């Protein structure tokens, strides 16, 4: 298991190397010039050329690429062209914002999705099953921007129950320590701020959770249906075990592996692909950070941001693979 983990971590290197290569050349292939964006429409040719030389953008692409790789080898993620701060310094608050939102979304998706899947499987062909599966189908095909706007319109505009956007009440900001506002407000004992942060998390959390929740519900249902027919479930019932434990102990553990796979993949999508949700809810997360960087052709931020998201994605799926062996003793990694 240990050597497998090491091998998988080593495999990260070529993957990330390939990532840097693709991202580096792709962002340079799209039209637009950072120097032009920074200096504006009215800048002179000379000023632009000077800035390009200063930023090293006048060098041939491959020279720039090798410079970038050399930087990365010293764990230097580069400096934002726009703000002139190190990416490694300014990226954390954005990552924390995304992690917090993704965590809440995943919590909703897993708790609701898994349980809906279980109940649907147990009461197969009941009204609950039909309703849940139709809702799941709608959920999978729901455009997130539309769902987000509807949430805002109903719960903020019409009912005025929840704040429409952002992470916190700007008039009463959380003093940041870890940049996870839930944690920060708790360790400072500011319950008012904690409640406020929770309120801000509900709508984007639900919007972000919708698609994973629907997928998880459907996968759980089909996986549970398979397991509930197996002989060992009959054995568990023949022992006189209660329905609850037959389902949540004997069945769920057997049904959970495909569900875990989906959760792993969806987590990656949540972390990287939450741009729509983050934009609608003005959520200062990593998706928006990279999106803004693309607008400004802020090459180092785009490259490093995507690299970090990719690393997290690979790591999460490694953890999922390791969990398989933890759940199923028949799975061995050698």
């Amino acid at each position, binding site marked *: 298991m240990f050597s497998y983990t090491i091998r998988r971590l080593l495999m990260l290197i070529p993957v990330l190397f390939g990532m840097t290569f693709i991202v580096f050349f792709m962002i340079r292939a799209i039209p637009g010039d950072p120097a032009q964006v920074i200096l504006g429409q009215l800048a002179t040719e000379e000023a632009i050329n000077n800035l390009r030389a200063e930023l090293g953008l006048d060098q041939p692409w491959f020279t720039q690429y090798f410079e970038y790789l050399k930087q990365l080898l010293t764990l230097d993620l580069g400096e934002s062209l726009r703000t002139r701060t190190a990416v490694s310094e300014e990226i954390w608050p954005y990552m924390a914002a995304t992690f917090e939102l993704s965590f809440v979304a995943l919590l909703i998706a897993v708790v609701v999705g898994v349980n809906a899947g279980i109940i649907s499987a147990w009461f197969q062909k009941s009204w609950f099953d039909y309703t849940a599966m139709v809702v799941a189908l709608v959920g999978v095909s729901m455009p997130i921007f539309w769902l987000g706007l509807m949430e805002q319109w109903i719960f903020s505009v019409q009912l005025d129950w929840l704040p429409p956007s952002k992470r916190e009440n700007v008039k009463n900001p959380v003093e940041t320590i870890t940049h996870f506002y839930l944690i920060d407000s708790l360790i400072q004992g500011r319950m008012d701020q904690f409640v406020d942060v929770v309120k801000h998390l509900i709508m984007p959390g639900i919007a972000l959770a919708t698609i994973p929740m629907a997928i998880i519900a459907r996968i759980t249902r089909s996986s549970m249906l398979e397991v509930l027919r*197996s*002989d*060992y479930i*009959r*054995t*568990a*019932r*023949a*022992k*006189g*075990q*209660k329905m609850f434990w037959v389902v949540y102990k*004997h069945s769920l*553990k*057997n049904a959970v592996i495909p569900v875990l796979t989906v959760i792993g993949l969806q987590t990656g999508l949540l972390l990287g692909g939450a741009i729509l949700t983050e934009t609608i809810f003005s959520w200062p997360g990593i998706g928006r950070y990279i999106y803004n960087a693309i607008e400004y052709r802020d090459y180092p931020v785009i490259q490093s941001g995507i690299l970090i998201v990719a690393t997290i994605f690979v790591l999460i799926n490694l953890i999922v693979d390791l969990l398989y062996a933890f*759940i*199923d*003793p*028949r799975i061995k990694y050698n």
Partner: protein
Amino acid sequence: MSESSVLQVNGLKTSFFMDKTEVPAVDHVDFDLKQGEIIAIVGESGCGKSVTSLSIMGLVPHPPGKVVGGEVFFNDEDLLKVSESKMRDIRGNEIAMIFQEPMTSLNPLFTIGNQITEAILIHRKWSKKQAKAKAIEYLKLVGLPRAEALMNEYPHQLSGGMRQRVMIAMAMVCEPKVLIADEPTTALDVTIQSQILALMKRLNQKLNTSIILITHDLGVVSEICERVIVMYAGKIVEEADVKTIFEHPEHPYTKGLIQSVPDIRNKKERLYSIPGNVPIPGSIKKGCRFADRCEFVMDRCREKTPELISIEGDHKVRCFLHQESEEQN
């Protein structure tokens, strides 16, 4: 051996509902099981043997299956009428069951120890330590070596024979009054088969557990059973003690089954087999269900269903051949 019966099945009827049509899988089955007795329910696949046992346990897969009539008396209570929670107290505790497929009947993700102690802790308010000691005791009782180490192993690390022993240990650990064994040896090879049967016989003698053995293998029956019930297409066609069944089988179906047992001394002849197949449940609306495959079939067999009648002591047969002889006598 006491003569009091522990389990009494009267007119049990279990049907499956497919597209709103009722297909009876078990049709008015009556039998009783005495304390410490081993009876066999014999028949080909699809005769309703397993459904009978699942009906007693209240484990008929529903939908589509449902017990639609009859009574199952155990401890002066009709198991078909008691609540689900009462039934859970009985399952595994007073009536336990082992299944045909030892390879798939144990949960692959939990240790043997976890699964056996679970069976104890559902029904006994014991500490985990007590339950563990009891589990080890029973693993030893069913003849498994290195019982302590086995507690921490997973089913996939065990052979089929060992898994079936674990299943038996798990079923017996609460010392049930009745053990239902649904084809416990079918999936095992022959040497293991006789070991498992010997084990069941030993447990029966040691703990005075009554056993219902469900099988299609008459060899198994002759080894350990005292009384045999032959089922065909959901109905009992013959019932007698084991000696009578083998020496004087009366129903043509029983005769056919006994003739189909290979005999090592009989090398020349081709092994007998009953022509045709078990009818699809519900396909025969009137007459004797065996009529189409019976070599002694008469006109009245296709018109009326014969009754199960006693021809000599406890020997009961459902066949017009014997009803006639009875009437003539």
